C-alpha cells in the first residue's frame, strides 16, 4: 500500500462513517480480531473471544498483552477516524493499568482524545466486559502526529 491509497481510504471511511474500514487497513487488527462501529457515545470497539487471544488457559483469561494491543489499536483508530490526520500516527508511550482479569468473552473499549495539539495527542482508552462501570483496564497513550 502506498501513502496516497491510505489517505484516500481514510477519507472514504470518514465520509461513510465506517471506522471498521480503517480497522481493516491494519493487519494487526485482523490478527487479534478487533472491530469497530459508530455508537451513540462515539466509536465502540470490541474484540470477540477467540482461542488465539488466551493468556491463561486454566482460568481461562484473555492475554494481558492482547488487551494492551487492542487498546493501543483502538486509540490510534480513534485518532485516524476523528481527526484529519494524513498517516498512521507514531506512538510515543503507552501506559496501561489492569483493573480486573479479562474473562474469556467479548471485550469492549471506548476512547477519548483528551488533548490534541499540533504535534502531540493524548488519548485515554477504557476496556470493559459486561458492565461499563466495571472496567477491566484503562490506558493512556501519547501520539506524535505525522
Amino acid at each position, binding site marked *: 500500500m502506498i501513502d496516497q491509497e491510505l489517505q484516500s481510504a481514510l477519507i472514504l471511511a470518514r465520509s461513510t462513517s465506517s471506522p471498521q474500514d480503517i480497522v481493516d487497513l491494519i493487519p494487526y487488527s485482523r490478527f487479534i480480531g478487533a472491530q469497530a462501529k459508530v455508537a451513540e457515545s462515539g466509536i465502540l470497539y470490541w474484540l470477540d473471544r477467540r482461542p488465539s487471544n488466551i493468556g491463561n*488457559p486454566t482460568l481461562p483469561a484473555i492475554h494481558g498483552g492482547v488487551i494492551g494491543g487492542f487498546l493501543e489499536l483502538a486509540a490510534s483508530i480513534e485518532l485516524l477516524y476523528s481527526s484529519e490526520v494524513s498517516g498512521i500516527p507514531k506512538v510515543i508511550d503507552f501506559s496501561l493499568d489492569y483493573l480486573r482479569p479479562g474473562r474469556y468473552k467479548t471485550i469492549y473499549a471506548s476512547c477519548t482524545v483528551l488533548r490534541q495539539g499540533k504535534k502531540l495527542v493524548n488519548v485515554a482508552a477504557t476496556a470493559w466486559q459486561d458492565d461499563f462501570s466495571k472496567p477491566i483496564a484503562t490506558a493512556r497513550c501519547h501520539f506524535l502526529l505525522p
Partner: protein
Amino acid sequence: MNLKLAIFKPLLKLGMERTGHGAALGFKLTKVNLGEVEMTLPCKPELVGNPVTGVIHGGVIVSLLDTCCGSAAITTLTRNSVTPTMDLRVDYMHPAEPNKPIYVSAKVYRDTSTVVFCRGRAWQDDAENPIAHCVATFMKVEAQSLSFPNVLRRSFKRFVLGKKDFKQAGDQ
C-alpha cells in the same frame, strides 16, 4: 540454577510458547534464569501495524514485553502464587524496522512479598539502542491450584495428552 528452576523452565516455555496468544505470536523463550527472561519473535506479515511502511504494530511489542516481564516475575516466586500484571508502561524509542526479528529481555529489579517490579526492553540490531523500554509491576496472589504437582499434572494433560481445558470452559 536450582533444581526447581530446571524443572520449571521447560514448563514455562511450553506454557508461554504453545498456548493461546503466545502460540499465535510465535515467539521463543531463549533464556530463563532467576528473575531474568529473554525472548525472540520472528517477523510475521500479520503483525504489521502500518500498511505503508510494514512496521510491526506497537500492540505486539506490548504483548511481548508483558509476557517477558510476567515470565521473569514468575521465576522469582517461591510459593504457589500467580502474578497478574498491575500496570505496564511502554516507551517507544524509535520505530521498529520491518522484516527483522525482535528480541526482548526482562529483569526483575525489586522483589517484595506482595509486588514484583520489572524492567524490560525490546531491540532489533543493537541491544544498546532499543526500540522500546518498559516498566511493569506484578501482584503476588496465592493460588492453591498452582501448586507444583497440580501444574505438572495439568501441563502433562495439555501437552502430552493434548487436552485443551479452556475449550470446555469457554464454549458452553
